[in-house]
């Protein structure tokens, strides 16, 4: 089926944008047909977020045109974009925290009745319009924001990573509403990292790579590989399996002392009995649903929280960390899911990598800049960090930022690495690189404890995995042979032959353990 240009609902052509020396978009184009749900895909740094910002009016393009229903529109502010029929919903809800919901609706001239209708469709029926946005749980705010956008019936609704870190039941409702909107007069532009969602609701996908639109794919079963291929510019067969099984339990010599030995570690009532050993040269996975005490465990191991009970030994000697500095001194370092927690966002890549190592580079109280440069240079190369925008870390893509947090520890020679969901919100290519790196580090003798919210990544990189359920380490599994259903059953603490409850099976379609979904829900869905 061919569609004439005038039949397109949204057409962006030949969009380019440069920030100083960095070319964010070279020549991007996008065509959205009426009634379709269109995915916009691209690896980190492909220019996807820049194109989204241009379409929402947050950034002005250097060249290119944007047309809605065949009429060229200047989209120089979100207000103009709204007038042009382009309305966006972001991962961060655009609701004013100090205003009540009614005022928030008034601010965007949203009609009340359609808003209530969509709210009910999305499963949020009991909402007091006079409650202040600040007092409403984040997950509900995002639903409110979506209902507000739907209520003004925009020509194109842009959902920018809207489902990321949304609890599974709400994600389902959002996808349901988006899916049902197909075939009408209006369209949805859907931006997400999750292939499974793209496959569920999208008709076509536009793929960006290095600032250029490299292809438009009809989404059908099996188009996932094609999209990934386009995103990476080469044929890849999903994530490469990197687990070597080198340190699998049976092969470990009996006389090796564990790097970390935890005995009945507890923290209030959340973490009750964490007992495990972490050996040098292995990647030990942590399989846990959200909120089973893994957050507290990692905080204790990293020295930022104190246990209320239990014993912790590092290299065989009993230890109690009072401060992260104690843990770092003992060679135990922490990589968090939230990069902003670990990085100095406004400083350079060099300073960020060198920061923890500065202590060892001092000469008469001054920092030995030459040694620092060598050290940083080596780790930037090793981790393949794209440091073109290296003057300020906040301008790097999420994946590159995460590499910087790992690089700072690699630079100093790391012995024990605690990784808490290190690949959250990172594209598949960078994920791969991070896992290859973790594997290399382990093979060189580093002990790595890895928690990931994506269960299917456990067998790819881990040797063994411990299962935490209800604050206790309840099981240990050989990760190399475990498939996703096995891991999921383990995470729910079910015997492998037990039937899985239906709602759990449904949830396995998405990720199991999204840390942010700990937000209390007040929808009645």
């Amino acid at each position: 089926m061919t569609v004439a240009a005038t039949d397109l609902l949204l057409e962006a052509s030949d969009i380019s944008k440069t920030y100083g020396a960095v070319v964010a978009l070279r020549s991007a184009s996008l065509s959205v047909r009426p009634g379709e749900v269109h995915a916009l895909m691209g690896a980190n740094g492909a220019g996807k977020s820049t194109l989204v910002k241009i379409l929402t009016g947050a950034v002005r393009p250097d060249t290119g045109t944007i047309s809605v229903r065949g009429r060229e529109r200047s989209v120089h502010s979100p207000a103009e974009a709204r007038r042009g029929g382009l309305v966006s919903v972001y991962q961060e809800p655009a609701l004013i925290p100090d205003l009540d919901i009614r005022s928030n609706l008034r601010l965007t001239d949203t009609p009340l009745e359609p808003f209530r209708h969509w709210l009910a469709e999305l499963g949020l029926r009991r909402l007091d319009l006079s409650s202040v946005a600040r007092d409403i749980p984040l997950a509900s705010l995002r639903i409110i924001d979506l209902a507000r956008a739907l209520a003004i019936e925009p020509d194109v609704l842009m959902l920018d990573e809207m489902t990321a870190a949304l609890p599974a039941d709400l994600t389902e409702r959002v996808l349901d509403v988006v899916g049902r909107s197909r075939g009408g007069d209006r369209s949805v532009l859907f931006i997400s990292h999750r292939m499974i969602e793209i496959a569920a609701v999208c008709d076509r996908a536009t793929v960006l790579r290095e600032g250029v639109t490299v292809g438009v794919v009809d989404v059908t079963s099996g188009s996932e590989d094609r999209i990934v291929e386009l995103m990476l510019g080469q044929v890849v067969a999903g994530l490469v399996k990197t687990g070597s099984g080198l340190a699998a339990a049976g092969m470990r010599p009996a006389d090796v002392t564990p790097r970390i030995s935890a005995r009945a570690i507890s923290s209030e009532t959340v973490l009750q009995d964490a007992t495990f050993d972490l050996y040098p040269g292995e990647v030990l996975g942590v399989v846990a649903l959200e909120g089973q005490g893994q957050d507290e465990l990692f905080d204790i191991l990293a020295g930022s929280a104190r246990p209320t009970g239990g014993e912790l030994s590092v290299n065989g000697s009993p230890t109690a960390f009072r401060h992260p500095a104690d843990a770092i001194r003992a060679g135990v370092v922490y990589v968090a899911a939230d990069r902003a927690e670990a990085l100095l966002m406004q400083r350079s890549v060099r300073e960020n990598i060198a920061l923890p190592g500065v202590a060892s580079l001092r000469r008469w109280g001054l920092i030995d800049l030459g040694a620092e440069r060598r050290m940083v240079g080596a780790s930037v190369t090793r981790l393949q960090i794209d440091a073109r925008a290296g003057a300020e870390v906040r301008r790097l893509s999420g994946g590159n930022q995460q590499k910087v947090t790992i690089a700072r520890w690699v630079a100093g020679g790391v012995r024990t690495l605690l990784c808490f969901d290190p690949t959250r919100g990172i594209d598949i290519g960078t994920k791969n690189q991070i896992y290859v790196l973790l594997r290399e580090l382990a093979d060189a003798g580093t002990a790595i404890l890895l928690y990931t919210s994506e269960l299917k990544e456990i067998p790819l990189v881990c040797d063994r995995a411990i299962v935490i359920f209800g604050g206790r380490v309840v099981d240990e599994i050989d990760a190399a042979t475990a498939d996703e259903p096995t891991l999921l059953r383990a995470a729910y603490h079910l015997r492998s032959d037990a039937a899985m409850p239906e709602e759990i099976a449904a949830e396995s379609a998405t990720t199991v353990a999204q840390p942010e979904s700990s937000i209390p829900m007040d929808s009645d869905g």
Partner: protein
Amino acid sequence: MSAVADSIDPAAARTTDALAGWGRRNAWTLGLLVFLAILLGFTKLIQPSYGVTGVQGLAISVLPLALAAVGQAIVVISGGIDLSIGAMMALTNVVAASQMQNQSEEFGVAVVVGVLLLGVILGAINGAVVVATRVPDIVVTLAMSFVWAGCALLVLKTPGGGAATWIQELLKGSIGNEWIPKAAIVLILIIALIWIPLRRSQAGLQIYAVGSDRLAAFRSGVSVGRTKILAYALLGLFAAFGGLALTASTGVGTPVPGPYTLLSVAAVVLGGVSLAGGRGGIIGPLVAVIILQLIRTDMTFLRFDPNLAVVAQGVILIGVVMVGSLVQLRRRRA
């Protein structure tokens, strides 16, 4: 959780809920009013002769600062701060006094209109510079305070000029009941004519939105720059009202700025407006202005060293705000 009202609750319970919610939201202002009442009682106790004259004097003496505090509150709610408000009051004060001197009463009306317009322009310039240069508000307005203070000295080198009789009479005495000073009526009229329509308009909503969360406001389609300029222009208008109040109450123009800049910020903070923006109203700052003035009066009655009185004012300010923040923190944790 206040966010979820139970739909099966009887209407009566909901009214109580709404009342309780209103009380919670305005707890700070209500607390200030109680404090003011106690302070008035205390004043009467230490100075039994405090009465009609005292209240009338109080109304006239707080008027310039009250107007400044309202202006400052608008800008602080929008997420900014204006350190040139004192200088703007001095400039509008001397322009009014120099133009009204030896002129007819009718011409005085024209001067008042012109001075108000001048205030709007001065404020809009402040706002436009903040928006255009992206230099922090505090730096821009500090610099502009020197500019406006310099201009005031260019207009009048020494205190002088005059004021139309009608504008001086406007603030003197009372209307109807002797307990209702004219100055208070003027203040209430100005606020009723400007603040209340603003608070209910889209523009007022946008001022709160920009102060609360710039990015969310921008993404909701609010023009952040225009809203900031509007807030500063309104501050300019209130500064001009303040300057005119000075002209009316003193009968002359004084080119050296009074202590209004920092006092207005103090009143805003004490009045429960968050310096981070987006929160608060103008009733709190107005009550705070009266409290600040009354504390001063009481200290005079108690024959405190005037210098010590200033120190005490600062200590009280810090103490009250600190206690308030602690209460808020605890409530949020609970």
